[in-house]
């Protein structure tokens, strides 16, 4: 298999398999999670200002008082790499073209130099967060294989994509194929690891916010 055949495979059967497993996993887990149901809270609801599902969705996006100072890397680094990922994934013209081809949705792309900068900043933030995870004894203690693994499968698509655009290390064709392959691995892994937070994040915040709002506690 030469590199063009490799690229054609990851663009064809590889993508088909990855998207298939992704959809299967995502729908399975969403159905399972949201049909679990919860016991009805029979207590009379209390009403407190700022206590609701929607409030919690937003409030949890901000650092609780004092935490930003105690753990700046987690918050600032986390914000930077999440926003960076969004810019790279949704702002790069070839990515938009893929989404358009798959779903019909389309929007204007960002200049490739800006996306390039975002990719570098994203990778830097991710590396800093990884070093922080290794250096801080508590974080290291709490980390399991899944944490290291999901970091790697998130980092690799950015790295290979950036290297493909910059023509580093390997010929563009091979690097592009590796980039697409790494994204396919991410797609396959996403529904079955903590990366599924991409889908459940706001739902679980809403749930927690609503359950506590019933008790009159803004969380």
């Amino acid at each position, binding site marked *: 298999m*030469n590199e*063009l*055949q490799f*690229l*054609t495979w990851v*663009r*064809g*059967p590889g*993508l*088909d*398999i990855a*998207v*298939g*497993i992704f*959809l*299967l*996993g*995502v*729908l*399975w*887990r*969403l*159905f*399972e999670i949201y*049909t*679990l*149901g919860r016991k009805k809270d029979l207590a009379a609801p209390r009403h407190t200002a700022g206590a609701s599902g929607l409030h919690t969705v937003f409030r949890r996006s901000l650092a609780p008082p004092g935490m930003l100072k105690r753990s700046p890397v987690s918050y600032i680094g986390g914000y930077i790499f999440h926003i960076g990922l969004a810019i790279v994934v949704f702002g790069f*013209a*070839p*990515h938009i*073209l*893929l989404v358009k*081809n*798959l779903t019909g949705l389309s929007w*204007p*792309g*960002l*200049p*490739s*130099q800006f996306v390039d900068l975002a990719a570098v900043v994203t990778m830097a933030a991710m590396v800093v967060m990884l070093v922080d995870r290794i250096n801080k004894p508590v974080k290291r203690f709490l980390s399991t294989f899944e944490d290291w693994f999901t970091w790697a499968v998130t980092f690799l698509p950015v790295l290979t994509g950036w290297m493909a655009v910059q*023509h580093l290390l390997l010929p*563009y*064709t091979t690097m*592009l194929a590796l980039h697409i392959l790494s994204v396919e691995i991410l797609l396959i892994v996403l529904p079955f690891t903590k990366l599924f937070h991409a889908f459940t994040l706001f739902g679980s915040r809403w749930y927690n916010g609503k359950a506590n709002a019933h008790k009159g506690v803004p969380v």
Partner: protein
Amino acid sequence: MQGPLIDTLARQGVTRRTFLKYCATLASMMALPPSAGLAMAEAMAAARRPSVIWLPFQECTGCTESITRSHSPTLEGMIFDMISLDYQETLMAAAGHQAEEARHAAMKENAGKYLLIVDGSIPLGVDGAYSCIGGRSNVDILKEAAAGCAAIVAMGSCASFGGIPKANPNPTGAVSVSDIIKDKPIVNIPGCPPIPVVMTGVLAHYLTFGSLPELDDKGRPKAFFGETIHDRCYRRPFYDQGKFAKTFDDEGARSGWCLFELGCKGPVTHNACATVKWNGGTSWPVESGHGCLGCSEPDFWDAGGFYKALSVPADPLKIAAFAAVVGAGAGVAVSFANRAKKNAAKKAHQPITLDDLEK
């Protein structure tokens, strides 16, 4: 500067200055040092016409057409004249047995020294019966001619990589020259067709240095195939700005924006079209408004369609819808199982009263 070639050129009205300029251009095009231009001129001027045997196999004659297009007005054509083309079915006057004899005579006289040019792929299916010349299969003729040659130039994508005949499902079992011949230096000059100056450049290099130029991992001269079309494309700034033609006749297309979204394979195609251009530097596919097909890459025919952008699926997703239904079904089934479990637990629940605890 004297020699058979320079004399011939002088007779044809080509001045020494023009010839030197041509050699310097050729040298710079091949990324050789400036001194190589003079060396090339001296070597070529003095060169004896090396014997060249051109074997056409499973091909469309497009490669020959391409080379001959550069023939009469340009110096490339004259250099081409300066080799002794002893066998070329399309161009030679001889036919039938005479042609075969000419080939055999050339092979005998120049044993071990002649340059073998091959265009077209070699079919191996049905013992090579899909393409025969004078009652002999291509593979048979190739092996015989390759045995006594100094080097082989695989002209065009078919000879280099199998090309269109090898495209899925490859009914004739077509293969490239390098799939068959393993013990001779082979230079691949892919393209459908290849650029004439690449051909003459390689010949000039061979005449000057007695060796083939530096090749990449696919056997292509690095000087011409070292960079991608995309990297040297004059429309590249539009790609970087995110300005794309969406159809072949929209405002973007008229403004000369990037053709990536229309399926241009420039980013993965190594060739010199963007710098050397075609028809004496007149234009080239992207300049004329059509994306690159990727014709100088192996198996370009089966690379997911000419009009599909590189970043979109090569094939329509087949299992996605099915997988989504299975996933949803599995989720629903599991949720029923969970509910049954919950209900069973509820039923099995035995209330404990204070009295029970005090027992």
